[in-house]
């Protein structure tokens, strides 16, 4: 039994005055302790919504379906009320752009200690002390806990956000674009920090990003999302060297080199709208090798080799590439 198992996760949004948007369409994956898993795709593909849904952090105009099992328990079963109990204690999140993710009028140390007191992990002086230790663990002097977020640099804020996420010793850490808006040197440090923490603390790490070199550096396995679905999943090596979905191939090909600065993906066209019916493969309009089948049949995510799945009709062709 895996530590984290996501099964058939769907999320819909009802925007005011507009049709319902099917943002996440049947996402499934599993993770064990200590594994580092990447969730990749362009903006709007549903990867952020997916991880938010893992913690039930959806807005009032959203609805969800499917299962999120932590140690076999479906934490979404009772809706918002039941999932609250698991937040931060079993699964925690590091948000992107930690500038705004930290409350500007509260001291950083207080913000780290707050969930500890609430979940009964530590109180008062003990909590403050532990907050200091966490800060040290991520490479910030403990005394900085007495400062406010705006006094921190971007990289320090991100580290503080990571320290905060670890406050109640979660088993699963979700990191949503933790390095966007940071410069390259700081990026590398943060990624090393995350890798190290996953290893030393035995955390299961889900790293959401649109930046492929990041995934290649940190994650052993990854899933590529497009238009709300996972279109390919498997070991990062396999995705890079043997992509079995045109989108994955184009994504990795578009990146100049593993340590390149420019992560802008330029595949012509745009992702499909998620507020209507899509017939056939959602990637077809932008695919460079479409088949006739692709117009009518939506391909299923199927095994192409051990631990490697892809949703493309080309994999059915004999001798396909």
């Amino acid at each position: 039994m895996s530590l984290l198992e996501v099964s058939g996760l769907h999320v819909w949004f009802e925007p005011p005055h507009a049709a319902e948007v099917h943002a996440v369409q049947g996402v499934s994956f599993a993770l064990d302790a200590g594994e580092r898993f990447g969730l990749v795709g362009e903006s709007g593909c549903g990867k952020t919504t997916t991880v938010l849904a893992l913690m039930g952090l959806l807005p009032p105009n959203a609805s969800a379906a499917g299962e999120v099992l932590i140690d076999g328990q479906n934490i979404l079963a009772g809706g918002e009320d039941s999932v609250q109990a698991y937040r931060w204690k079993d699964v925690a999140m590091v948000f992107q752009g930690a500038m705004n993710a930290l409350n500007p009028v509260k001291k950083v140390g207080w913000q780290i200690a707050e969930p500890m007191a609430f979940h009964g992990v530590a109180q008062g002086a003990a909590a403050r002390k532990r907050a200091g230790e966490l800060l040290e663990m991520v490479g910030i002097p403990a005394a900085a806990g007495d400062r406010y977020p705006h006094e921190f640099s971007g990289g320090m804020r991100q580290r503080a956000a990571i320290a905060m996420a670890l406050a109640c010793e979660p088993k699963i850490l979700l990191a949503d674009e933790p390095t966007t808006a940071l410069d390259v040197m700081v990026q590398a440090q943060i990624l090393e920090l995350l890798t190290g923490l996953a290893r030393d603390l035995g955390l299961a790490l889900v790293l959401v990003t649109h930046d492929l070199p990041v995934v290649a550096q940190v994650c052993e396995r990854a899933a590529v999302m497009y238009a709300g679905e996972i279109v390919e999943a498997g070991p990062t090596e396999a995705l890079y060297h043997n992509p079995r979905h045109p989108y994955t191939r184009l994504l990795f090909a578009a990146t100049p080199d593993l340590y390149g600065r420019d992560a802008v993906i330029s595949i012509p066209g745009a992702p499909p709208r998620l507020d209507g019916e899509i017939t056939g493969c959602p990637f077809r309009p932008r695919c460079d090798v479409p088949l006739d089948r692709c117009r009518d049949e939506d391909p299923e995510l199927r095994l192409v080799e051990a631990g490697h799945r892809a949703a493309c009709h080309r994999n059915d062709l004999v001798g396909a590439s």
Partner: protein
Amino acid sequence: MTLPLQDPLLSAEGEGQPSHRAGFFRTVLKERKAAVVGLSIIVFFVVLAIVAPYIAPYSVTEPSCAVYAPPSPQHWLGCDDGGFDMVSLLMVGGRISMIVGFAATLVAMIIGGGVGILSGYFGGWVDGSLMRVTDYLLVIPDLVFMMVIADLWGASLFHVIIVIGILEWTTTARIIRAQVMSVRERVYVKRARGMGAGNFRIVWRHILPQVGPLLIANTVLTIAIAIYLETALAFLGLEDPTAVTWGTILENAFQRTAISSGAWWAIVPAGFAIAAVIVGCFLFGQAVEDALNPRLRVAYLSIRPWRLRPLVGRGPGAI
């Protein structure tokens, strides 16, 4: 970290910003009920103001009933202290009040819009000195200043219009200035500059259309304030007492002891009329302003949480 609900390709240059021309107002009216209600009220009163002299049942210069006559089938809202029919007074008074409100706002808009555009577009010392001036003007308490000026210059409708206009332009100037500054930095404006377009042309063709909706929202809200201030000035005796406005109706009622005479009809309807116009202006102006605010109305806190749907069947075709 905002939820991905819009097409990401549009966010880059602000080309897809919603504040463009006529289609924008249509959208606002379609999506916001408050805007429709507000606009209807405004239109109703504007129409009323226009036709008032023709449909007022009685004259407002010749008395037509007894002093403080109570409401009756002939006079639905009774009469005031001079024996004038209240319904006619309200209609004609509304006309003048609205005219004063609009005129004062026009003055404020011209000055404020002009200052704002100049300040925002040219920046530098032009901006600095103009903003200093507005700072000092903002500090002066409105009503007292108006009392003093109206007293020094004499009590007439014209002076009231000018005085209200002089004091109300500062907020407009601030808002327009901020908007112009942000538009000035947009790519297409820089492009126009690069192609050698003159300042006036840039302001006219590129900046004004973007600033337009905000200016309209601000105008409507200023009209509300102007009407409000007119009633206050009239109440304090700083307006031509022979003029018939909603403000003088209330002033007369107060001065001529309507309350002790029990003549509530000389007071109550005027207040509702004034409030109606102001509410209408507020609803419409506020709705437009809200629609111009580009921030996504995401709510992470609400009393109503997200819903859980039951899974029906299995497999990718489920649900």
